[in-house]
């Protein structure tokens, strides 16, 4: 799937002028070919990526942009081959621990100097997620919040309000269960959804710093604080808070439970909103709240997975790659590609404006004002890959057979000692 952009450039000349300001000095110098391999293969993101490539191509007359879009799932394994043999200049990937294999193998270019030179103004707050060994290895281009999406209409019918504490949460859930519904829908067939629950319960029970220490392998899984997290989780499981047979469903297959009103809420990333709307729920029926506080006084940490661009270590056209990253990170482009016409997510540039959407606005407010604990990426991005896969399997087992907890924790602890 390869397309070369040279035609239709004139139509985009207007936006070029808008976006070009800061990059004006670099314009004349760029020539040759800029090769981009992207995993933005879903229809919406694909259009965004193709738009970016076409526009960047039009901005630089002597440069031709060659874009290869790879299926998002396939890319997770293909990136290895792509980077090691005849690498393109710019690739898509994910932040945090997911970068580690490529950073360690020297396949991503160290772009700390570009950050220090002020290329990416407005991105300072997200620099940490792209940092490893004190060097910076890429730039983010979008992120999204996680949280509880719930059926506002059912909450109103039952006389419930958004819970802020764990007691309120449990009380709410009891009312919902008594009304014959499940509090939460979830589909754990592909495991990661259970990782989201663990992230939140652990960050709320023990705090963000403990959560990250666990991710770094500094705390044993058999620690009493970890058990406290699972004990809280078990309260919800035992009261029938989750839908039955969730181990058989994918996250999409779990959506109808919420759409049909058999479950009232879903702990999920913001990408679920689109699906819920497509399923027929209106914005009057849907609302969002931040995961409630469990241990009072702990600053709240949030999951906000970040998608990224990196320059390959073997890039041929480094100047063009640098200009492209600058362009993508600029406030104007950030506002546009994360807007409702684009990805419908949060822009990474602090100077960009956030789309006028109920959920994106709430997410932005939450992450900028109420996430003092810190921003985590997600279970399968913060933990090393091997630990993440064993871990998520254990989390799924716990959700189905909570009594197996001791066995599960012993297994995870054995894996921790081997992996780190």
């Amino acid at each position, binding site marked *: 799937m390869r397309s070369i952009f040279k035609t239709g450039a004139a139509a985009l000349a207007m936006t070029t002028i808008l976006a070009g300001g800061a990059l004006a000095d670099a314009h004349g110098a760029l020539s040759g070919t800029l090769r981009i391999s992207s995993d933005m293969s879903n229809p919406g993101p694909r259009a965004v990526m193709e738009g970016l490539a076409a526009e960047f191509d039009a901005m630089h007359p002597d440069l031709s942009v060659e874009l290869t879009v790879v299926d998002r799932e396939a890319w997770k394994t293909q990136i290895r081959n792509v980077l090691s043999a005849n690498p393109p200049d710019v690739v898509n990937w994910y932040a945090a621990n997911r970068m580690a294999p490529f950073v360690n193998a020297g396949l991503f270019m160290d772009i700390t100097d570009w950050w220090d030179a002020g290329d990416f103004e407005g991105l300072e707050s997200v620099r940490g997620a792209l940092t490893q060994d004190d060097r910076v290895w890429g730039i983010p281009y979008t992120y999204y919040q996680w949280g509880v999406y719930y059926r506002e209409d059912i909450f109103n019918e039952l006389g419930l309000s958004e819970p802020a504490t764990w007691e309120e949460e449990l009380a709410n859930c009891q009312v919902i269960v008594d009304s014959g519904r499940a509090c939460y829908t979830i589909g754990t067939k*592909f495991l990661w959804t259970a990782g989201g629950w663990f992230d939140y319960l652990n960050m709320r029970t023990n705090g963000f710093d403990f959560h990250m220490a666990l991710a770094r392998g500094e705390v044993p899984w058999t620690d009493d604080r970890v058990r406290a997290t699972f004990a809280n989780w078990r309260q919800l499981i035992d009261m029938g808070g989750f839908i039955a047979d969730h181990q058989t469903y994918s996250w999409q297959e779990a959506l109808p439970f919420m759409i049909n009103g058999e479950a009232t809420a879903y702990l999920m990333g913001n990408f679920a909103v689109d699906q819920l709307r497509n399923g027929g729920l209106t914005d009057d029926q849907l609302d969002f709240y931040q995961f409630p506080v469990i241990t009072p006084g702990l600053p709240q940490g949030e999951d906000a997975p970040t998608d990224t661009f990196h320059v390959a270590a073997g890039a041929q056209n480094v100047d063009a790659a640098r200009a492209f990253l600058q362009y993508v990170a600029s406030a104007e482009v950030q506002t546009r590609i994360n807007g409702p016409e684009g990805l419908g997510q949060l822009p990474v540039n602090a100077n960009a404006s956030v789309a006028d959407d109920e959920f994106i606005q709430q997410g932005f407010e939450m992450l900028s004002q109420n996430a003092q604990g810190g921003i985590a990426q997600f279970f399968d991005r913060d933990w090393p*890959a091997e630990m993440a896969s064993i871990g998520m399997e254990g989390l799924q087992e716990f959700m189905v057979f909570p009594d197996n907890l001791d066995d599960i924790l012993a297994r995870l602890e054995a894996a921790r000692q081997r992996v780190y």
Partner: protein
Amino acid sequence: MTTNTSRGTATWMQRNRMTVTPILFLLPGLIFFAVYVISPIFQSFNISLYQWDGLGEARYIGLENYRELATDRNFEISLWNNVRWLLLYLLAIPLGLFIALFLNQTVVGIRLYKSLFFFPFVLSQVVVGLVFSWFYLPREGLLNAGLQMLGMGSVNILGDPDLATYGIIAAGLWPQTAYCMILYLTGLNAVDPEQVEAGRLDGAKGWKMLWYVILPQLKPATFIAFVVTIIGALRSFDLISIMTNGGPFGSTRVLSFYMFEQALGEYGFRMGYGSAIAVVLFLIMLVFIAYFLWQMWRDDRAARHG
């Protein structure tokens, strides 16, 4: 004398034509087989002695991967699941035989019935997996609808770690039975009617007829059915991937699936460990390969010596 001189003047090529020609014809195939089949086997053996993420430096760790396998519970589960697959998949042979016997008659429209029974074999494994996972769905599935009509509780086969593997094997048996059936149908065409007649005169009927007269004549078909069923059982990867993705919590993995997860899956890239699993799987297959080769060699020899 003349023959001797002519032999002396003949080129090496002319003298050895009978040996060289077949070798030349076989050579392209042999080269490809060596490069793409034989050498990867030895490469796997080699890689299984290293710790390697597929990108950086490979580190030699001796038999450490195998030591880890010995204590890996997921490996043990996968191994037992492979045994379950191998044993239960063989049910396809008797099932196929009985359907073939049942369909081996001349009534109106028998061709249609035969094609209907053969139909599942035409479907891709992926489609079979999807159809069965819908069939097993805990609430909407046909299976549970049937159970509820009979007044029984619902069962989530693919969500139950004790049942899921059997559920997948049942799905796999559907097309495999059709395959064995078609093998036996062709075999039954070759059954000698005179022997059947002779058997009948001697008073054989029913089970005795089947066991002593029909089955011995179906031996070649049975052998092929056995071979394809064993191969099918070891190739269960696609069904597992579609129906449970190895879950719930890894209870439906088999060795090939576990190998894929460890070596090439999203959270894997432990090439050495994956190779160690592949080596174990290869050794299991080697038992069957050796048996098949020996069987074929024996048949071949019997045919040649009468």
